[in-house]
């Protein structure tokens, strides 16, 4: 049985899954570290759910306006970035409590997604099952998706490297960043855009609902073992890779969906990390 599962690794669809898992682990670990240390887990969850509306809208536009080029990923990117802009906006935060904004948009995104998908003429446009959007289907990843993801991953890594110190200042002490003359609003927008793009990649791998696990768990585990930002990122990537590989492998072994398996492996590592980890810090 294990031998069969290993044999599956020669299949292109399995290899695509592994590459997707690799890219997701890299961005999930690096950007997830910011999400965890800056305590914006809930906002990131909001961004993930809001993208559901964008995916629905993309299908609807394919149908009603015959925009066959309107890939769901474009809709997801637009909605995720829009949510990022709103969540990082100071002027909105001054008027509405931030987590209320998250609650409103989170539900609106889901509602729009369900509505839009319902309005699409399924005989005309092939629509992904809502369940596979929500829970992810790494099996459906195509070669083109991987090129797009690889491009986004490289872009994210480059931006993090260029703005590493600035992002550290803004996430550690925003007021100090402003006093130092840093463009704090711009950096917040950058951070939320990076989170938004990461969410889009992760959605394809584990789905809307489970994004928050891959964004949170690796960084949370890593943060138990180190007190440096960049080592947290590095460890989080390793944890993510381990979880992705074990998740994909066990899903092949037991013929179960990979998304939930990845999340369960990560969650399983979280518990011993906290029980054992604190002793070695």
């Amino acid at each position, binding site marked *: 049985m294990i031998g069969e599962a290993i044999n599956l690794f020669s299949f292109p669809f399995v290899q695509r899954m592994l590459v997707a898992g690799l890219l997701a682990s890299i961005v999930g670990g690096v950007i997830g570290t910011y999400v965890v240390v800056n305590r914006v887990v809930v906002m990131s969850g909001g961004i993930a759910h809001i993208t559901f509306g964008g995916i629905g809208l993309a299908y609807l536009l394919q149908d009603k306006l015959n925009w066959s080029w309107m890939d769901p990923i474009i809709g997801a990117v637009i909605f995720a970035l829009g949510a990022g802009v709103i969540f990082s906006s100071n002027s909105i935060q001054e008027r509405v409590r931030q987590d209320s904004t998250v609650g409103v948009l989170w539900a609106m995104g889901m509602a729009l997604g369900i509505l839009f998908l319902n309005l699409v003429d399924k005989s005309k446009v092939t629509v992904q099952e809502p369940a596979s959007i929500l829970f992810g289907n790494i099996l459906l990843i195509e070669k083109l998706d991987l090129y797009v993801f690889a491009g986004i991953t490289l872009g994210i890594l480059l931006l993090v490297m260029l703005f590493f*110190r*600035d992002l550290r200042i803004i996430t*550690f002490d925003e007021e*100090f960043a402003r*006093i130092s003359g840093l463009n704090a609003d711009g950096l917040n927008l950058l951070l939320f855009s990076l989170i938004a793009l990461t969410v889009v990649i992760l959605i394809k791998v584990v789905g809307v609902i489970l994004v928050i696990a891959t964004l949170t768990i690796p960084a949370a585990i890593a943060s138990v073992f180190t007190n440096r*930002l960049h080592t947290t990122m590095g460890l989080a990537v390793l944890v993510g890779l381990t979880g992705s590989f074990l998740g994909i492998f066990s899903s092949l072994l037991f013929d179960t969906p990979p998304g939930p398996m990845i999340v369960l492996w990560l969650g399983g590592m979280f518990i011993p990390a906290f029980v054992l980890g604190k002793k070695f810090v």
Partner: protein
Amino acid sequence: MTEEVLPIETEGLAAGYNGNTVITDVNLRVESDDFVGIIGPNGGGKTTLLKSVLGLLKPIEGSVKVFGRRPVETRDRIGYVPQYATFDEEYPITVKEVVGMGLRREKNFFERYSSEDRHRTNQALENVEMTNYEDEPISALSGGQKQRVFIARALVSDPDILLLDEPTASVDRKLEKGIYSLLKELNDRMAIVVVTHDIGVMSSYVTKIACLSGELYTSNEPYLKKEMLEDAYRCPVELITHAGEEIPHRVLGEHREGPKEEAK
């Protein structure tokens, strides 16, 4: 003859949030060798005044000048030490990295600190006697040590003014003295402004004291008489004692909160 340019000078300053004025007609003059203590009740506008001087808040009326210019133009000459309680204690960052933030030169991941940056960081850590802790995570430090690190971060850019917001709010009386004597040393090279609601041992170290309660009441002496405080300054005082030392020790009571109108 050139007129002396004051480190901080506000004229008829009114400031607040969303159009609501918190402080009015504040005339503050800080000279380059001053150690100014600004006391006042919570809600008296201490933070509002600090934010105005730091350029985070635009004046509603009047002006704020830092070395004769707008605060945003002179950012590199002010070192600011916030209340440490506002930080995330669990943030994965070392003492050295926190101090390095004060260098204010934008650097990315690839660039290393120059030898001058290293020198400045070491110097700042030495100033606050935290050299041995440079690689410690910030989460491992005590309240007083954290405060010293944030002072070092403010010192690393070699400022001419040091602003501190409640520098001893989170430390005990013994450490409080340590922090003030450190500030006293630093006062040889820079003007120091401390804002606090708890006068504590501060009065033994300052050269000027002012009371902020909507308006600013200043005294060019390092002490305030009980009557002055209560009648003119609206900062209720319970007791002023002289402990028989060279420096008079003053014990001020808790400030009572009062309606803003009364403070005028």
